[in-house]
């Protein structure tokens, strides 16, 4: 059996298991909208932890982290992972618990319902709706496009008669359009039948899968390289700058010497050194703002509302940073080791390899067996799907509860009608996403992710002020949303629509400027406009206020 066919079998078994899980969760479905969208607010600590972690960690945690480490060294962990550990838990603790409590008391399902009430403004939903959905769709596309690409890359040689290709890498591989269709269909089925409960169960299963596979892969690769100590020593020998958070002038000099030696005698030098990369302290600090996006993700809001009680948040708040560490440290090390990995006297990664996101898959392919390669593909798909499902469901929920339920039918939908409309919208969104993913296949995934996260993060002041500042006003909220949208758009255009990956404003990530502007407009406009009514303040801050 070819390696591609082994991967097909492993992935097919995995997807079948997911379907069984999704369909099984349907047995617990009570037929109500509250059950479909919020699992009757009955999710306990462990499932909440798993679904929150699975939703926030995308394929980037496995593939992107090792790719970025391959390119820039260990500094990627500090930039992205440890900041996320601090900030995500802060969002769960400071934002999630309070929003859950309002949701449980006032029956909210979507963020827009909360903001409508909190700012006593029916129209704010119409401003927020296009922005939230407009930011979730690119996030959805990141997962869908990545899943099709992963399936095509790992199934080469499986069906040479059925899917012949001039490119030897893809000869016999499951084509992109079919891979995307299969993933969309599987997610659609378990979201359609299981609602948010099916999503939470699937996320728990998938999170366990990709964590275990990440660790198994790490040990298998370390073993093949003669142990982790030997693997790190090779990096020290060939690419020492990758073992530091940032490169120095001395590293640049060492790099130039090693490059000259490699060009003189490629056989003897074996490894072509990688260019050292450095990061300014201010830019490193500004990375802390990106994970604030978690406070405004509509799909996380929905997961928060599924909690059984406020106490259910305790485990996710505490364990989330550790879970991030367990996934990221092995992946970063694999990425760094890949810069200098040699087996049988030859480099594992070709000298002019230019696709860092493929480093992880390549290391697994070349250093482990086809079975582990198949399992790893399943692990990557698990990471992708555990975010996709929540996003599909939340966009369906926003359309159902905010647009059809509130603005079109003026809250006259029955419970059964809400479930039906929700399911129909999930199907429609999956179809639309599929078509966009086919048409925009070549779009850059990394810049899309950075700008999408920056957009959500720029709305963080809105949710924070709504929970902690009694004086924030309706007009302040409008000013915040509109300023964030305008500044985001201007900077996105300035960056060449995301093409300039190193685009900074004043030495910091663009998100810092956007958050600064949205916060300033929220505060200034709130201070000069009419304060919220005493009834609204009492509803959200209690009678003592």
């Amino acid at each position, binding site marked *: 059996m070819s390696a591609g066919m082994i991967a097909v079998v492993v992935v097919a078994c995995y997807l079948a298991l997911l379907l069984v899980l999704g369909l099984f969760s349907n047995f617990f479905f009570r037929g109500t909208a509250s059950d479909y969208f919020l699992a009757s607010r009955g999710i306990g600590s462990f499932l909440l932890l798993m679904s929150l972690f699975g939703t926030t960690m995308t394929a980037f945690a496995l593939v992107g982290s090792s790719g970025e480490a391959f390119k820039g060294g260990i500094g990627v962990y500090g930039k992205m992972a440890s900041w996320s550990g*601090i900030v995500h838990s802060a969002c769960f603790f400071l934002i999630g618990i309070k929003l859950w409590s309002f949701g449980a008391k006032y029956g*909210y399902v979507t963020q827009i319902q909360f903001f409508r009430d909190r700012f006593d403004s029916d129209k704010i939903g119409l401003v927020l709706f296009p922005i939230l959905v407009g930011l979730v769709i690119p996030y959805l596309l990141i997962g869908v496009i990545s899943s099709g690409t992963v399936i095509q890359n790992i199934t080469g040689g499986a069906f040479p008669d059925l899917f012949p290709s001039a490119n030897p890498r893809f000869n016999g591989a499951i084509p992109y359009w079919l891979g995307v269709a299969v993933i969309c269909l599987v997610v659609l089925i378990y979201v359609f039948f299981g609602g948010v409960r099916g999503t939470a169960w699937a996320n728990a299963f998938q999170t366990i899968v990709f964590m275990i596979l990440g660790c198994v892969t790490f040990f298998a690769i370390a073993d093949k390289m003669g142990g982790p100590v030997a693997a790190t020593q090779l990096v020290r020998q060939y690419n020492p700058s990758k073992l530091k958070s940032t490169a120095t002038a001395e590293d640049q000099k060492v790099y130039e010497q090693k490059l000259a030696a490699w060009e003189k005698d490629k056989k003897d030098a074996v490894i072509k050194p990688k260019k050292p990369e450095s990061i300014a302290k201010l830019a490193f600090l500004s990375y802390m703002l990106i994970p604030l996006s978690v406070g405004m993700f509509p799909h996380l809001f929905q997961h928060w509302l599924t909690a059984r009680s406020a106490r259910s948040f305790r485990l996710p708040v505490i364990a989330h940073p550790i879970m991030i560490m367990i996934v990221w440290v092995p992946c970063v*090390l694999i990425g760094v080791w890949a810069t200098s990995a040699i087996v049988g006297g030859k480099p594992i990664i070709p000298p002019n390899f230019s696709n860092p996101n493929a480093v992880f898959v390549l290391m697994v392919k070349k250093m482990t067996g086809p079975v582990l390669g198949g399992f790893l593909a399943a692990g990557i798909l698990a990471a992708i799907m555990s975010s996709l499902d929540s996003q599909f469901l939340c966009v369906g929920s926003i359309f159902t509860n905010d647009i059809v339920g509130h603005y079109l039918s003026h809250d006259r939908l029955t419970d059964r009608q809400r479930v039906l409309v929700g399911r129909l919208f999930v199907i429609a969104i999956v179809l639309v996403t599929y078509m966009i993913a086919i048409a925009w296949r070549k779009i850059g995934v990394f810049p899309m992710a950075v700008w999408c996260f920056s957009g959500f993060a720029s709305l963080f002041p809105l949710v924070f002020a709504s929970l902690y500042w009694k004086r924030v006003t309706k007009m302040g909220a409008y000013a915040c949303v509109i300023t964030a949208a305008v500044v985001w758009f201007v900077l996105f255009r300035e960056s060449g629509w995301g093409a300039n990956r190193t685009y900074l404003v004043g030495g910091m990530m663009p998100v810092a400027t956007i958050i600064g502007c949205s916060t300033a407009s929220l505060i200034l406009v709130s201070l000069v406009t009419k304060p919220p009514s005493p009834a609204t303040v009492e509803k959200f801050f209690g009678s003592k206020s």
Partner: protein
Amino acid sequence: MRKLVYVMIVLLALVHQDFWWWDRIDPLVFGFIPIGLAYQAGVSIAAAALWAMAVKYCWPEGLVSEQGADTPLTGGDA
């Protein structure tokens, strides 16, 4: 205690800027993890410990609801 925990979280965010290790590889923790990466992994562990303290000593006050119920979906009042 509440204030102390929040101060410690802010301190953690500050010491996350570990520029004193930035150009160092050694010591290698367990013989293979460069100090910069080991330190940041330590930041993750410290974050978990501090959030555990926050859960114990800084639990949000005045929650309008502590125990979930299968509340009917209202769609908001506005």
